[in-house]
């Protein structure tokens, strides 16, 4: 686009000029688009201090209160599509090394050397929680590695559906590793639906069966510290991962390695190296960059509004940002 604009500028200047050209784009269509955008912003800014909403609450059955989320979703989907095709075209993938994910394989190797089992807990929530799905993703890799090393794997579940899916996942992973005998049905355990009864049951497994490694990947609540401390007492190496912000400090304090928030969701991409999954991690990073820019702009405007209370333009911009965000 910029190249065409420059070419048109040279042509018009050579002819003796047929009018002014835009400084950064040459086509009429682009100028019209920019004019429309400018008009829209001007309308929005002028409407904001009137006390009414800039945007209606609903438009064509779309709830405009949730417009920012829809925009984020569209941005993410677009970035993902672009990055996926770029990855398929041969662009190399790069993922930052995460000590917590590398530690998972080391933990299983440690269990193999000590001749003791690995204990895996895919969180305490049901299968409708995205963290549980992410935990089960990691379970498939853990089961594969455990089967390769011929290490027993115990999976403790709080929900029946999670147990059923975990059984299938471990069975399939053991088969894929060429060791179907590594899947032991008695090692797939449903303990209780009750939070603390489940915790007591897991503590019992840790103290009786003495796993060499405990891997907690999923959604946890107040039982997180009880599990981690009991795992420490039993002498196990512990790798935890959760997106629950309130439980992260306990895992960080009590476990050897912790996957924090987004690292937990990136773990499956890191372990599988599947291009389609890695592309989604990169798309997440792009979305984070956009959020960062929006936050910085908002902070700058809010600071400027506090310092310049009489500037109507800045106040209108701040109000507009508050409304759409």
């Amino acid at each position, binding site marked *: 686009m910029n190249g065409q604009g420059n070419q048109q500028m040279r042509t018009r200047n050579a002819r003796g000029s047929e009018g002014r050209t835009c400084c950064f784009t040459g086509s009429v269509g682009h100028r019209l688009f920019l004019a429309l955008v400018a008009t829209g912003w001007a309308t929005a800014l002028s409407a904001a201090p009137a006390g009414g909403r800039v945007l209606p609450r609903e438009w064509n059955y779309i709830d405009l209160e949730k417009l920012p989320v829809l925009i984020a979703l569209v941005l993410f989907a677009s970035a*993902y599509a672009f990055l996926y095709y770029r990855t398929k075209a041969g662009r190399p993938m790069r993922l930052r090394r995460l000590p917590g994910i590398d530690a998972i394989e080391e933990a299983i190797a440690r269990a193999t050397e000590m001749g003791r089992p690995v204990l895996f807990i895919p969180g305490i929530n049901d299968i409708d929680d995205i963290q549980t*799905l992410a935990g089960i993703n990691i379970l498939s890799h853990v089961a594969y590695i455990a089967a390769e090393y011929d290490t027993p794997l115990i999976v403790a579940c709080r929900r029946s559906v999670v147990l059923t*899916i975990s059984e*299938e996942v471990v*069975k399939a992973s053991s088969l894929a590793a060429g060791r179907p005998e590594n899947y032991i049905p008695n090692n797939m355990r449903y303990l209780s639906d009750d939070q603390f009864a489940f915790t007591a049951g897991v503590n019992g497994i840790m103290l009786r069966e003495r796993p060499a490694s405990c891997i907690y990947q999923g959604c946890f609540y107040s039982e997180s510290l009880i599990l981690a401390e009991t795992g420490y007492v039993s002498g196990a190496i512990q790798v935890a991962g959760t997106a629950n912000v309130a439980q992260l400090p306990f895992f960080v304090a009590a476990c050897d390695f912790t996957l924090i928030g987004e690292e937990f969701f990136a773990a499956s991409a890191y372990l599988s190296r599947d291009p389609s999954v890695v592309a989604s991690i990169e798309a997440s990073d792009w979305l984070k960059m956009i959020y960062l820019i929006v936050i910085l702009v908002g902070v700058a405007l809010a600071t400027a509004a506090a310092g310049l209370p009489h500037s109507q333009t800045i106040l209108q911009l701040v109000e507009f940002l508050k409304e759409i965000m």
Partner: protein
Amino acid sequence: MRNRIPVLISAFVGIFMILKYFSTAATIKRVADELEQWGVVTLSFSIVLGVLNLIKINLKAVMERKKDWGYKLLLLVSMFTMMIAGGIKWYREETLAQSGDGSTTAIKNTLFDFMFDHVYFPLSATIFALLAFYVASAAFRAFRAKNIHATLLLVAAVIVMIGRVPVGGAIWSGFPWLQEWLMTWPNTAGQRAIQIGAAIGMIATGLRVIFGIEKPYLKG
């Protein structure tokens, strides 16, 4: 085909849930609510699977007299006792409701209530109470000045712990203010940053599952 049908079902239901969130159309909300009800009913049946798994593993251990088989027997006896007691209580309440005016009246002082209030509840509270001691032992292990990050953690934890108790204000009047500032500004900023990252990760994982890019429920 065996792998495609679950993926199609997952995509169909997932897309409807997304549409329900963004749309105000009554039809979409009705369909999405119906799908949610189907999910609840399906999950309710799954409790049977969990009970069967418990019985299978523990009964086998009891019959083979494996190590600690007594505790497994106790588990099975407790489970069946509560199930029977709960069933009796439900039956009595239903009978009362049918013989009366049709309204549901809770019957008190049953065996189920006794075991719930005097056995289950104290046991649950006991496990929860372990947290207090585990916090102390975890703090004792974690708050060591091994490197710069651990030292920062130690200093922040000490300030917050002292600032939150009355004796902190007695030692120095700035402690309560400092701990309030720490919890309000740096702590909240850090938490929000993690939450934003986790939320984006959830969007990415959710879309991967809905559109079949990742199929954690269908490994093999």
